[in-house]
């Protein structure tokens, strides 16, 4: 134990979770909001739609907030390094909100032109959230202590797990760009949806690599 009170490191984890993820969500919501402002200038009745699309990249910030609350109030007795790892995982993976903002902005633009495409644009815009969900997943696994006394989840190694899923979560930015393109394609030809999804899911592969390595670290079979 580094400090007498594990929450001292836990506070750093909480700060990282809400800070970095908040940064990601802020940028993402900003990108989507700019597009929303343009849309409602054209047609004020689209305000509701704009709010919905702007809400999508905000979830990452919420996940960060959630993990911070969990660390500070609920899992106070979790291993201290697990708390930091959980914070890093949720925080960095929350940067995927930037990608989601790009996708939402494209989605909003497409819906402003043609309301029928709302559902499809939504599905594409929500793709880059997967990374944040993986980050949240690893954070939960760390905090709950799913892997028992495994050194991968209780010592400084937990930071490795957080970094793996966190940085791999930045693939969400790339995915957002692909999804934005796919929304444009689908707006032109609704039949492009299936193939567009295949392309847009590609960048997720790396988030899965990150998640896998994080799980392997937490399992700690190599120690």
């Amino acid at each position, binding site marked *: 134990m580094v400090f007498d009170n594990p929450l001292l490191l836990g506070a750093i984890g909480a700060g990282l979770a809400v800070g970095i993820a908040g940064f990601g969500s802020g940028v993402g919501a900003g990108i989507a909001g700019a597009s929303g402002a343009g849309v409602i200038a054209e047609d004020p009745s689209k305000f509701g739609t704009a709010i*919905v699309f702007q*809400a999508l990249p*905000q*979830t990452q910030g*919420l*996940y960060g*907030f*959630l993990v911070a*609350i*969990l660390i500070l*109030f*609920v899992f106070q007795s979790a291993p201290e390094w697990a708390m930091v790892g959980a914070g890093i995982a949720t925080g960095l993976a929350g940067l995927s909100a930037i990608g989601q903002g790009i996708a939402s902005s494209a989605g909003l633009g497409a819906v402003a032109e043609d309301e029928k495409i709302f*559902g*499809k644009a*939504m*599905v594409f815009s*929500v*793709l880059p*959230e*997967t990374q944040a*969900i*993986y980050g*949240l*997943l690893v954070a*939960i*696994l760390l905090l*709950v202590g*799913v*892997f*028992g006394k*495994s050194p991968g989840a209780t010592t400084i190694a937990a930071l490795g797990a957080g970094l793996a899923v966190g940085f791999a979560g930045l693939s969400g930015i790339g995915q957002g760009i692909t999804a934005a393109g796919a929304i444009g394609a689908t707006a032109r030809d*609704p*039949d492009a*949806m*299936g193939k567009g*999804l*295949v392309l847009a*899911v590609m960048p*997720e*592969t790396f988030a*899965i*690599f990150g*998640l*896998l390595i994080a799980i392997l670290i937490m399992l700690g079979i190599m120690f």
Partner: protein
Amino acid sequence: MKKLRAVILDEKMDKVVRELHEEGLVELCDLASKLEDPEWAGLLSPSSPAPYIRDVSALLIKTNRFLDLFDSVKEEEKGGLKELLNPTLPPKEKVNFSSADEVIAYGRSLLEEVEGEVKELADRLNHLENRINYLQQLKSYLNYLKDFEVDLEYLKSGPYTYVVVGLIPEERVSQLKEKVSSITDNLSEVVEGKPVVTGERERKVPVVVVTLKEYKDKVSGELRRSGFERIEVSNLKGTPGENLERIEKEIRECEKEREDILNKLRELAKKWYRKLLVLHELLEIEKERAESYTYYGRTERTYMLEGWVPEKYVDRVKNTIERASEGCGVVEVREPDEPEEKIPVMLDNPKPVKPFEMLTEMFAPPKYNEIDPTLLIVPGFLIFYGIMLTDAVYGLLLTLIGLFVWKKLGKVSEGARNIGYILTLAGIATVIAGIITGGYLGDFLKEFLGFDIYKTPFALVNPLGESFYINELRPLLKLGSISVDNGPIAILLFSILVGILHLFIGLVVGFKENLEKKGFKEAFLNQGIWLLLIIGLALGLVTNMPSIILATVALVVLLCIVRGYMKGGILDAMLGVMDITGFLGNVLSYARLLALCLATGGLAMAVNIMAKLIGDSVPVIGILLALIVLLIGHTFNFVMNGLGAFIHSLRLHYVEFFGQFYEGGGKKFQPFKARREYTTVN
């Protein structure tokens, strides 16, 4: 789908078209492309719209004009919000017209009657509005000239003098005065009044310029350059003040008369508006019928029509055509001979599943002969939604909202009906999931009432820790070194298992489809490999023999390499190994069920914690503040996670599930059908 072809005697054609249009079971095919083929062109010539389209279009324009007029005078209907939340269906008027000519005759007489009552009023209204506009303009001019207490009659050019009145920008007044006196050798007078602020918020000065006629051109040129804006008051007599009084009186009179006319028109609108809407609909329907003739081909005495008919309606349509043509028609029904992508597709699901077709169509309607995945979506969608939202109170709220949208808003909109139905079912699923996980506004009961549901037998799992049934002393099961002894890991295990089952179903369906269409090899390479992997893993786990798992994984890797090699040589063979990660990614994607399930409960808990902190720390008004935090926080959480659960549930179907067997991209069946909102035929 069947292809229908009918040849009908020309005098019976109209009856056939009308009956098919009312029945709405046939999608017409445009024969124009066929007529490019010389063989067909020798037999048929293109057909033009039915002759009555001219009259119908003319009447339609007239009807629109009256509807616009009535729209412009109608008062806003009261009870807007109530009407919005609980729309009343317009009563349908029963109509019985057996030919376009009857509709045209009815339309003519109705419009004549309306015109007789409305025209005079409308013309007078138009005249009054023009007059009021003119007077308002004049009034604003006279207001600028109020300071000149002079009879306006004198501000007219005489035989030797040139007089002009107008406004110029304030800063140019002195310059203008100098210029005018210099070019007229002082034989001029520029009188200025008090500066005024015009409608465009500029400060301008009214001026009267008087000079000799011979300087007219020079002076008016100078005026133009200094931004002079002429005011035409030369036809008025008396001072501006007197005129203003007179004009204001006239405006009041005109407005009073206009109000009278508007009232009369409102009365007439009550009388005629609905009838005009009915007529509008009737005419639109006739127009569609007339235009449908361009789809047919014709010979000297017959028309030929082609169309798509869903198999189960073939007999009905055949009977209709034979009855309507009174035996003067030949019907032929064949299997479609066109490429599959041109054949339309009609989704045909039992009533309880039908609203879910919306979710299928949002992805893409199935291709012809492809399986309709709607029925397969239903259970997965509801289960996933329930797990992701997991809160009994939120679920109840969602059920109520769903019922409201379904029963109230759904009366006038099919889309609302479908989405309401889906939300209602999703809400019920959420209530069940909420009861299982003990989520009632998160941990509201524990936080505020001190009742920890997880210590009682009323909740099966605790998404954030241990429960009565699953805890360290009573682990659910042990997987190697991991003991499933708390909520999150139990839900994670459940999510992965559900995911594998979900993928398995998709793979089996895909395998079957491929087997029928492309043969065993394709089916095995595309879906069989993964089925093998899942079965091998399951077998290994059940019998607890890791060797089976290892052997299956090795075999599947090998098969992936072989498949890659068959597709495109060595490079693809190496990439084939990556397919395993792709499949693993699909499975892991279902872990989002746990993450989102916990996010709802966790955020609800965060709201409760904040409310409690505020309630405890702020004196007196603390309770009120806590209530506000609870209300806003839970509403926000409900909306965000309700939306998130919906889209993530869809994503799991579109990306992971459909990826195994479904492509979509068919053409939706769009029948030739009369759309009736205000009328009914039976």
